[in-house]
């Protein structure tokens, strides 16, 4: 029971965005996807979520073809946090989060409200609950959206394992909130959820991910356990910059020396 993409390929008007990429997202694990801009990370996530229809290869969720689940069943098993958001209407933050419960089997008002409140607290936005969404800052909106996808897969469902797909979830967050979001993702993984996150910071991937996929020019550069895949050689090849590994108090840190700058 997992979310798997097999030999996925995707192209738009003769431009190949993704070629022959396979990935298995297992329940209970955090899987990070890294790569330069335009490497096909978001395309991969959109194929796994069903937002793009499959051109080459196959996507299976919980042992069934993704297309074999209807829209609501799909939404009960996996939540997706896309990049950016475009809500212009004056919902309160709490109303936005409550929309995440739309596909779920409803429990009655009291229990539903409790779930929404707990998710607001988990995402650190309880104090924003009654604030109007479009007036929030970019980082605050991102955390509200995170709470919204959390409530969607808050509890186990009979249909199968749950999955959480996050497209650059840390992009607009400050340092502390980046770590608190990924800590939450780990906690959900511990509760049986398979988490996929597109990340740009290899140190976050090293700190929070079990598995890593490195994408470059739409192809797989390397894939495997985080500690074995996030090597200085792989990262230098991935980004074309010199990456070094520093050890500090027993923890490995990946660092980039600014090119052309001497100390």
């Amino acid at each position, binding site marked *: 029971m997992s979310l798997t993409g097999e030999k996925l390929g995707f192209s738009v008007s003769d431009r190949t965005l993704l070629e022959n990429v396979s990935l298995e997202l297992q329940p209970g694990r955090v899987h990070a996807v890294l790569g330069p801009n335009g490497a096909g990370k978001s395309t991969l996530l959109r194929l796994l*979520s*069903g*937002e793009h229809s499959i051109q080459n290869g196959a996507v299976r969720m919980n042992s069934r073809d993704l297309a074999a689940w209807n*829209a*609501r*069943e*799909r*939404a*009960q098993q996996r*939540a*997706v946090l*896309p990049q950016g*958001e*475009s*809500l*212009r*209407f*004056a*919902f*309160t933050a*709490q*109303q*936005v989060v409550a*929309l*995440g419960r*739309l*596909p779920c089997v409803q429990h009655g008002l009291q229990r539903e409200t409790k779930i929404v409140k707990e998710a607001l607290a988990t995402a650190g936005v309880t104090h924003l609950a*009654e604030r*109007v969404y*479009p*007036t929030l800052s970019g980082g605050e909106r991102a955390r509200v959206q995170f709470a919204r996808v959390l409530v*969607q897969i808050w509890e186990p469902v009979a249909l199968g394992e749950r999955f959480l797909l996050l497209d650059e979830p840390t992009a607009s967050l400050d340092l502390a909130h980046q770590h608190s979001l990924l800590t939450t993702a780990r906690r959900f993984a511990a509760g049986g959820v398979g988490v996929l996150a597109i990340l740009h910071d290899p140190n976050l991937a090293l700190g929070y991910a079990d598995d890593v996929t490195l994408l470059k020019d739409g192809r797989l550069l390397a894939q495997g356990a985080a500690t074995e895949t996030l090597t200085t050689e792989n990262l230098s090849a991935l980004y074309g910059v010199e990456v070094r590994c520093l050890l500090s108090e027993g923890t490995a840190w990946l660092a980039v020396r600014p090119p052309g700058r001497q100390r």
Partner: protein
Amino acid sequence: MLGMTLFCNPMPSLVSRAQLLIILALLTLAAALLALSVGPVPIIFGKVIGSLIPGLGTPPEAFEAATVQQIRAPRIALALLIGAALAQAGAAMQGLFRNPLADPGLVGVSSGAAFAAVAAIVFGNSIQVFDWLPARYVLPLATFAGGWLAAITVLRLSSSEGYTRIGVMLLLGLAINAIAGAGIGFLSHIADDIALRSLTFWMFGSLGKAGWNEILIATPLLLLPLILLPRRAQALNALLLGEAEAGHLGVNVEKLKRELIFLIVLAVAASVALAGIIGFVGLVVPHLIRLWVGPDHRLLLPASALLGALLLTLADIGSRLLLAPTELPIGILTALVGGPFFIGLLLRNKTNAGVL
């Protein structure tokens, strides 16, 4: 701080939600009774009641009963139905376009429907192209087709990748309104006197043309969207998050959009066929409701329907009293109020780029 008033959004509890709808319904009922009572011949409330329900209230004179039953009641029924349908269609259209400035009138659906209606009148009478079709169905079908064509054109051309370009949407509406206006003008130029006289009716709207027969035929067409649109309230809420987001939440977005367009065009086309173009109801009413209770469609759609019915009934009273004994076309009145309101919205949006 001017921009902030747009976001004044108290969250009503369940009780106050029901209260809001009940208050609106009672006000609408009161306005309808008032509208039945006032006019060139004032008729007291007791006699209005007596005319509607024999045995109750004060027994009316024969001419008073006839005035209420045959002249005033059909137009009030029309005001209630069309006001509700237009306001709710406007609210749904703003959800569909994910923009509070979308309005069936502004984006050209009403004028597309009106143009097709005028064309059906002019050509339907002179050339018998539709002899396989009963004549009384030609006008409603043409009206629906015209409105649908305008809606599809604007939606296709103004949105790409699930995002509506509001500038393109409004410019397309401008173009369609201009084309339809020119078309109506041209047709009335080549048409006979009878069609010529109906030009004002189609361009400015009036509640005085339709009688009980027309209303009975059109009522199901107006009730269908009024009943079915609120059932899509939660899907519309999800759609406001974005098309991709709604899809991830289990909404079949393409199907939802097709259904919404069908229901919106049905409401607008039926309104146009009965009363011509009555603009700005679909823009002003949902906006007022959103200011009051926020954008949740579960409350927005029914509350817009009630407030639309209330405001159009009041507008009808105004249109009959302002130039009494002659009548001001109600579309002129709604445009006089709605136009400045729209400019005010645009000005406020300048200080609050988020909504555009």
